[in-house]
């Protein structure tokens, strides 16, 4: 009797461990996308609803360069990142910068419109099919106690970590990074000390779209890619950013991981059908109770 309970306990532990591990790797992706949101928000005050589309572009461009241009993966991926970044640049130049009345409503609408446009063009150019990308280093599962992950999951976690470190370095130890931070604290003052605010806006879009593309490339071998994978990923990434208080550092990463794990546990222990609802309920709770995120300080608004 007690052995049965013991065995079931072990099985439950295995299951929970699997949920947690799966959640961590999805969470890492959410974190990367969330950081992309935060960077643009911090430099410009804009929430870029099209962020998810850059994730999609990363995967789709890589596929294009791999199959149509026949480049090897180590050339296709960086070229794809470059291509996505160019799209990000064009987006900022053509849609954001010329905006005469940058009210939140207008910005929300224009970024939604932009995301629809990018999605539609991708559908036209590449079709509606789903495509798979080859994983970076094979598909043999790695066993950790009773749970398994794939090598690709490790790639995701490592690359995310590298990007966080690079981010930290850029924002705290380079002139342009510090200039961008200055813009996020106080745009006017930054402009007064000679920082080209408009260029900072452009940089923020470039960096975010690049990061989004990287996220798309590392997750595509697991989740396959198609013209419409950006929508949900973008939304979840935004949740992660809110949880982390819209910072471009470690708190958003933690936010993403928490979101991924909670989502996974919810789906496993409560109900798989309502999995997405769980993520959004978490979002609503955070927005209601602690809109500055789990770790941020309360915002004050100038009137």
């Amino acid at each position: 009797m007690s052995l049965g309970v013991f065995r079931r306990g072990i099985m439950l532990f295995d299951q929970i461990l699997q949920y947690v591990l799966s959640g961590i790797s999805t969470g890492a992706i959410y974190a990367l996308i969330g950081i992309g949101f935060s960077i643009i928000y911090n430099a410009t005050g804009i929430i870029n609803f099209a962020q998810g589309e850059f994730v999609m572009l990363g995967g789709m461009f890589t596929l294009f360069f791999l199959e149509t241009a026949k480049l090897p993966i180590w050339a296709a991926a960086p070229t794809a990142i470059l291509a996505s970044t160019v799209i990000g640049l064009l987006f900022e130049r053509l849609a954001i910068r010329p905006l005469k009345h940058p009210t939140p409503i207008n910005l929300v609408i224009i970024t939604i419109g932009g995301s629809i446009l990018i999605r539609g063009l991708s559908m036209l150019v590449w079709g509606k099919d789903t495509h798979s990308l080859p994983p970076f280093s094979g598909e043999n599962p790695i066993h950790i106690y009773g749970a398994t992950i794939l090598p690709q999951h490790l790639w995701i976690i490592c690359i995310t970590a590298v990007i966080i470190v690079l981010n930290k370095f850029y924002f705290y130890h380079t002139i342009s990074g510090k200039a961008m931070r200055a813009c996020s604290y106080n745009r006017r003052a930054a402009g007064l000390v000679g920082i080209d605010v408009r260029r900072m806006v452009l940089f923020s879009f470039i960096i975010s779209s690049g990061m989004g593309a990287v996220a798309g490339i590392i997750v595509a071998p697991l989740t396959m890619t198609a013209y419409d994978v950006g929508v949900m990923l973008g939304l979840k990434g935004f949740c992660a950013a809110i949880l982390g208080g819209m910072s471009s550092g470690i708190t958003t990463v933690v936010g993403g991981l928490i979101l991924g794990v909670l989502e996974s546990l919810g789906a496993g222990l409560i109900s798989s059908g309502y999995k997405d609802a769980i993520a959004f309920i978490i979002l609503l709770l955070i927005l209601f109770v602690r809109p500055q995120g789990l770790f941020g300080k309360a915002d004050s608004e100038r009137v």
Partner: protein
Amino acid sequence: MKSELIKFLFFSTIILLIPFVIGDGYLLNVMVFVGIHTMLAVALNLLLGYAGQISLGHAGFFGMGAYLSAILTTTYGFNPWFVMPAAAVIVGTLAFIIGLPILKLKGHYLAMATLGLGIIFYITFNESVEMTGGPSGFSSIPNLKIGSFVFDSDLKNYYLIWLFTLIIVLLAVNLASSRIGRALRAVHDSEVAARVAGVNSRLLKVQIFAMSAVVSSIAGSLYAHTMTFISPASFGFNFSVELLTMVVIGGLASVYGSFLGAALLTLLPEFLRAAHDYDIIIYGALLVVMVMFMPGGLVRGIPDLYRKIILRKGAVDNA
């Protein structure tokens, strides 16, 4: 006020005469949907254009009204004329309760929160298969009827729906030019200043949120009885974006602008039918272009354009 009344009577007359002009064909069927969309757009405009609060989840209230009507009349056999207002009250109360915490948020945060809310509604419709039929949809919803007169043709539904829509338009126009309308616009411009001036901005925002939910619910009930079949797909994020587009393109804070936006967006796919793969692009491009070049919507942009190009005068400053 008198000029508003004249405008309304003119508008109503045209609407009532349209079936005689276009006959009983496909176009009439589309105009029925224009009626429903106008109701929804006007409701959203009150919240978005006048009070300045973004909602990306209004399709959820539309869906709630539709499902409540569908389930209570088909599965439980209640009288549709009784269910429709009951559903509206339920949805309105729900919206009020949710509105209290949600409207503390502003700008992007409010947008995201309402987006999440809409998605939660959609998932609920999709997953509660026993009640709603789930993704396969809910069929055999009865048509509305008065005695033995059944609303089962496009012509009859056209007048039924537009009757409701015209009432809503009248109420909205009335509201906009009343004291409440001014209070709403004060909240839109600067909430703190409004509060200083004695407007209970928080309560007002929640009230408008609830009211627009009530109207959306009524539109949902009418939709259910007209189509006799509903499925969650019509009540998702895509439709919320479509509604938003209607309001923006038509013109924020303009009731007739909402009609223009609704009509345009419902009729446009008809003209783009030849290029059906491209319509999603044109959609997104429209959004971007409208916001960049005509942020006041068509209802202000076209007269402006006329003045600038034809009359070669400067643009009139619309407050």
